[in-house]
């Protein structure tokens, strides 16, 4: 049975199943959310207005049996944070269940005229519109618990109080296998776009669903085997490897060593407390607190069923019980080093607050750092920082400013050092010390986003080659190649972390493409990854142009050209002309 598009109109509470039109038939995941946004959302619309939409799509291979680490769900539309196109993807349970219901995408549009809020229950029979009144004002931990009792073994997509208030840093939560929130489509404020639609939660029950058809089982199986072997043989992703042993926070010490760990609102590139918030420290806390049989803290946690990398963790409280999943590299940095905080328990508690209230941890940490620089509280004040989340939860004037993210908060507190591109704040890699990632921050259609073109792989990790992070040369081309490959991988439904093994192991790269070919029946090989990725980027870039973005928005903030960053004492030196070359092909051929 061919996949369908499920269109849910919240104005008249009507759900319709549509055939996938020819123009979208090649796409899934990010490619599909971007194609639908490009075709159906007015680029100049207000992100919180009636003409924006929330598009949800699993990847090409998501929901297939045994495709490894392929549970991603893409969430797309126009971003309230950037004013441009957005795709944020998450792990958790939703992607596989949406795919198994036979859906290529869900388009959420309109908004209830009566101002009511709804929980949508999706199952094989259709969509139920349930009154969400009992969930209003609640955070994601309580929502997942309540809905998990009524609808066991389902995926729960939801927004916390931040999304209800339509704040620009509101993310969308997806539950994990233990029915906890924390797998977030965090970036860009898509939780506010869901809130505008009057939808507090979406429950996905795939019981009895048709599943995902595989057009060419032989090709799919051959590709799956190659990809699985690559993942399980690479030192980073194999059993006992770096990611399952230490999680993504394995990077804290390394990026600090390279002088690229943004510290105290991007004022220096090394943090004296880095080791205390590192992956090694997280592993040590888990080992110390989780000796008992009923302990819940763990490394090597899978964020969705079928993940064979297992880079997630469950950070325990002092009694060894679940406090939060997961303390990522980005989280440990944003709420730790960047705020001058070296206490993992505060970092973990703040991460839990982000997951509960419904905030992106990167933007939240950057916002607190900017507020610290503006004098609201001292750098290093973990207790003060933690209290700010309650301000957001309660919707106080201060909380609403903080919930708007970095740029609004910087204006409110008169701060000049504002680490944003296109309104979205930078992740945990200093562009002055690691130039290629700066090109990605500046030029991706998404606003500052490391996952959009992770040049850290060759610049720091020696994955996919080895490049000096401190030099400018060749970084524009490097970033574009990574941006294009990423756009493709974001459309497969695979976790982006499969990129590390397959950049080093060529058969894995080919295998990934073969699984896509096998599922879809399209003639896709490893050579098509970058060209197809560029097709996706072009749609996104054109949307932004039509929304009013010019090349002047593809810039690194002024202070990074003016202030030399210790310890290497480097400024941002890649020229505007070089940045403008990255996307020159959109109008000048490839």
């Amino acid at each position: 049975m061919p996949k369908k598009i499920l269109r849910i109109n919240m104005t008249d509470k009507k759900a319709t199943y549509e055939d996938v039109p020819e123009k979208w038939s090649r796409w899934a995941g990010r490619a599909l959310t971007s194609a639908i946004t490009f075709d159906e959302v007015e680029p100049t619309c207000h992100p919180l207005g009636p003409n924006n939409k929330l598009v949800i799509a699993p990847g090409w291979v998501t929901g297939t049996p045994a495709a490894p680490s392929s549970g991603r769900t893409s969430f797309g539309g126009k971003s309230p944070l950037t004013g441009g196109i957005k795709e944020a993807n998450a792990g958790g349970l939703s992607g596989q269940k949406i795919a198994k219901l036979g859906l290529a995408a869900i388009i959420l549009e309109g908004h209830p005229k009566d101002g009511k809020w709804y929980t949508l229950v999706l199952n094989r029979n259709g969509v139920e519109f349930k009154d969400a009144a009992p969930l209003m004002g609640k955070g994601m931990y309580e929502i997942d618990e309540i809905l998990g009792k009524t609808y066991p073994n389902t995926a729960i997509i939801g927004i916390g109080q931040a999304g209800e208030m339509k704040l620009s840093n509101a993310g969308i939560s997806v539950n994990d296998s233990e029915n906890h929130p924390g797998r977030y489509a965090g970036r860009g404020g898509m939780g506010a776009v869901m809130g505008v639609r009057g939808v507090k939660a979406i429950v996905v029950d795939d019981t009895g669903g048709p599943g995902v058809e595989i057009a060419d089982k032989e090709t799919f199986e051959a590709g799956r085997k190659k990809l699985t072997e690559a993942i399980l043989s690479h030192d980073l992703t194999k059993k006992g490897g770096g990611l399952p042993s230490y999680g993504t926070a394995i990077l804290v010490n390394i990026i600090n060593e390279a002088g690229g760990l943004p510290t105290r609102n991007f004022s220096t590139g090394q943090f004296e407390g880095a080791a205390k918030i590192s992956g090694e420290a997280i592993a040590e806390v888990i080992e110390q607190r989780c000796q008992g049989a009923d302990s819940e803290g763990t490394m090597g946690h899978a964020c969705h069923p079928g993940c064979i990398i297992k880079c997630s963790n469950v950070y325990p409280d002092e009694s060894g019980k679940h406090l939060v999943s997961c303390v990522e590299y980005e989280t440990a940095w944003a709420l730790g080093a960047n705020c001058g905080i070296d206490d993992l328990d505060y970092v973990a508690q703040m991460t839990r607050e982000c997951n509960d209230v419904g905030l992106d941890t990167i933007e939240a940490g950057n916002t607190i750092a900017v507020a610290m620089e503006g004098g609201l509280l001292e750098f290093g004040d973990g207790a003060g920082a933690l209290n700010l989340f309650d301000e957001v939860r309660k919707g106080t004037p201060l909380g609403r400013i903080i919930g708007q993210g970095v740029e609004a908060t910087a204006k409110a507190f008169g701060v000049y050092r504002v680490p944003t591109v296109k309104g979205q704040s930078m992740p945990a890699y200093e562009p002055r010390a690691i130039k290629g990632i700066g090109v990605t921050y500046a030029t991706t259609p998404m606003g500052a986003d490391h996952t959009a073109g992770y040049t850290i792989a060759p610049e720091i990790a020696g994955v996919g080659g080895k490049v000096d992070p401190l030099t400018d040369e060749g970084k524009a081309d490097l970033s574009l190649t990574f941006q294009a490959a990423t756009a493709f991988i974001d459309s497969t439904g695979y976790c982006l972390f499969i990129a590390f093994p397959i950049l080093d192991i060529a058969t894995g790269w080919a295998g990934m493409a073969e699984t896509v070919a096998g599922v879809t029946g399209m003639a896709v090989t490893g050579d098509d990854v970058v060209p197809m990725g560029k097709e996706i980027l072009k749609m996104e870039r054109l949307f932004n142009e039509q929304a009013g973005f010019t090349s002047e928005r593809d810039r690194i903030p002024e202070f990074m050209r003016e202030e030399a960053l210790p310890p290497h004492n480097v400024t941002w030196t890649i020229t505007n002309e070089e940045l403008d070359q990255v996307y020159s092909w959109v109008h000048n051929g490839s």
Partner: protein
Amino acid sequence: MQIDVRVFATLRRYVPELGVGETIKMDVESGTTLVEILDHLNLPREEVKIVMRNGRQADLDDAVQEGDRIAFVPAIAGG
């Protein structure tokens, strides 16, 4: 002359006495190379993916200098 050596992530299994955030202070002869230090610490060469000297990428054949800060890094990446 004295140098500081840091060993990260999965490589710490080979120096189990080293606490998180601790550095190894080593006295070495002038002209000692990074690969000699690596071998002295019994770190398997095939597991060392990156070597850093004073925060910059280095080659295993590079000789160290007084006060250098050296880091041995296994396969890492993330986000």
